[in-house]
């Protein structure tokens, strides 16, 4: 009885190992089913999904115009303080009225958790999440970005 058990144990053990090896052997002989992506090499063809949240950008059109009014709703919505809006004043030469505009839109990428709350809070849809994900830099200070491009202006009609 003991010997019979012993032999059947060995038989079942070896059989279970072979069952597992059959799976790995199948993939070894069918290289077409391998799904690995060669990442840095496929950079040109790699396309991220449209909703992927990589970084916050301020949308500029071809005339270097953006839609940000400097209302700082995004600054308030941000849980980590990664957005800082420094606003300035612009005086209309015709009417003499002063309006609030953004001076600098500071974005601390190093503090951002990509929660998308700033995008949802923006009343004018001035900011969006871009798909870039290669954020590594050699110096931490480079992760603090100014999002409004130099010389950019607010689009007319946005309030």
């Amino acid at each position: 009885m003991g010997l019979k058990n012993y032999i059947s144990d060995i038989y079942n053990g070896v059989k279970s190992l072979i069952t597992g090896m059959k799976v790995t052997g199948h993939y070894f002989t069918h290289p077409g089913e391998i799904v690995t992506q060669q990442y840095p090499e496929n950079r040109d063809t790699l396309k991220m999904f449209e909703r992927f949240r990589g970084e916050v950008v301020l949308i500029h059109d071809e005339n270097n115009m953006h839609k940000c009014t400097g209302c700082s709703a995004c600054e308030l919505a941000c849980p980590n303080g990664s957005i800082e809006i420094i606003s300035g004043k612009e005086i209309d030469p015709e009417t003499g009225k002063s309006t609030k505009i953004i001076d600098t839109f500071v974005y601390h990428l190093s503090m951002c958790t990509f929660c998308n709350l700033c995008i949802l809070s923006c009343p004018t849809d001035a900011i969006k999440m871009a798909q870039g994900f290669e954020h590594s830099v050699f110096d931490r200070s480079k992760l603090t970005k100014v999002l409004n491009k130099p010389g950019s202006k607010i689009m007319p009609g946005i309030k």
Partner: protein
Amino acid sequence: MTEQELITNIETAPETQEYFINMGPQHPSTHGVLRLLLTLDGEIIKKVEPHLGYIHRSIEKMCEKDSYQQIVHLTDRMDYLSCHMNNEAVCLCVENGLQLEIPERVKVIRTIISELTRLSSHQLWWGVMGMDLGAITTFLYGFRDRELITDIFEETCGARLTMNYNVPGGVMFDIHPNFQKRTKDFITYFRKKLPEYDELLTGNVIFTERTKDIGYLSKEDAISYGVTGPSGRASGFACDVRKRFPYSAYDRVEFKEIIYTEGDCFARYKARIDEMWESMKIIEQLIDNIPEGEHKAKTKAVIKLPEGEYYQRVETARGELGVYIVSDNKKSPYRVKFRSPGFSNLSALDTMARGNKIADLVATMSTLDLVIPDIDR
């Protein structure tokens, strides 16, 4: 050496003595920064004492300064493998407090994505479990299938791991047009691939030897320690929140509560594998019947919960997550407490590991499916 000499040798040999070993905080099989202080007698474990605090980020305290919308993204960072369920728990709690009517569409979307999250969590667990016991292959296979789910998340939710897809009142965006097709494709694919998991690991003689009758947890202990989730159900403790206290769309789907009575590592393993089948069943029932409607109920920009206490529990991939909010009618909560499944599950580790060999501790911990940021918060 004669027999007599041998006996005197043993008798005069120096006495064995208990000693201590630190396992972690930088140990690959603790899956994070968990430190276990082991008291050993030779190779036999006498006592396991977990030391926490290495990844404490004071999430509960941070919640006290954040608005209710902002709290949600913090829960992503607790149990990152079941982030959607964590988000859902907070949102359900806030919605309960507001007495908000949630669109049917939201409930179904939340349930589908919860189950996908559970699947991806179990796939990762399966891969890591094999790796802990010395089989690198399983890790790669688990990640291969998980990648398809992260693709679904990336397309619909916008992120692969910390999705933050829930907002109080609904979900952040409507589902992507490809969502249903991708999910159905995945289910057909994974129904073919899941038997491979059994072939690779479940029947394997080395694996069964290392998991059967190891790390026994009795039903009584499971209840008294509050071990929930697949780990608790493997000991015979029927604790599935989805079944007992249905939330979202779980009341309208049919699925089996997986219960094993063995209480050993193999039972916990089997419970999770079976749960993957059940999750697929739930998704299949819902994916074609997503009701039309809004993806978000209207909420005020500043949410203020009426004064009082609110509690909501959900079933995450690890067990029961409870969210307890005390509100004093301000825009941020007065106190938030998370009852995380990992913490309670870990507390039973001592009972399970005592008397076993040190190598079995790795198997025991692995079947508990510990996520350390969940334990520490």
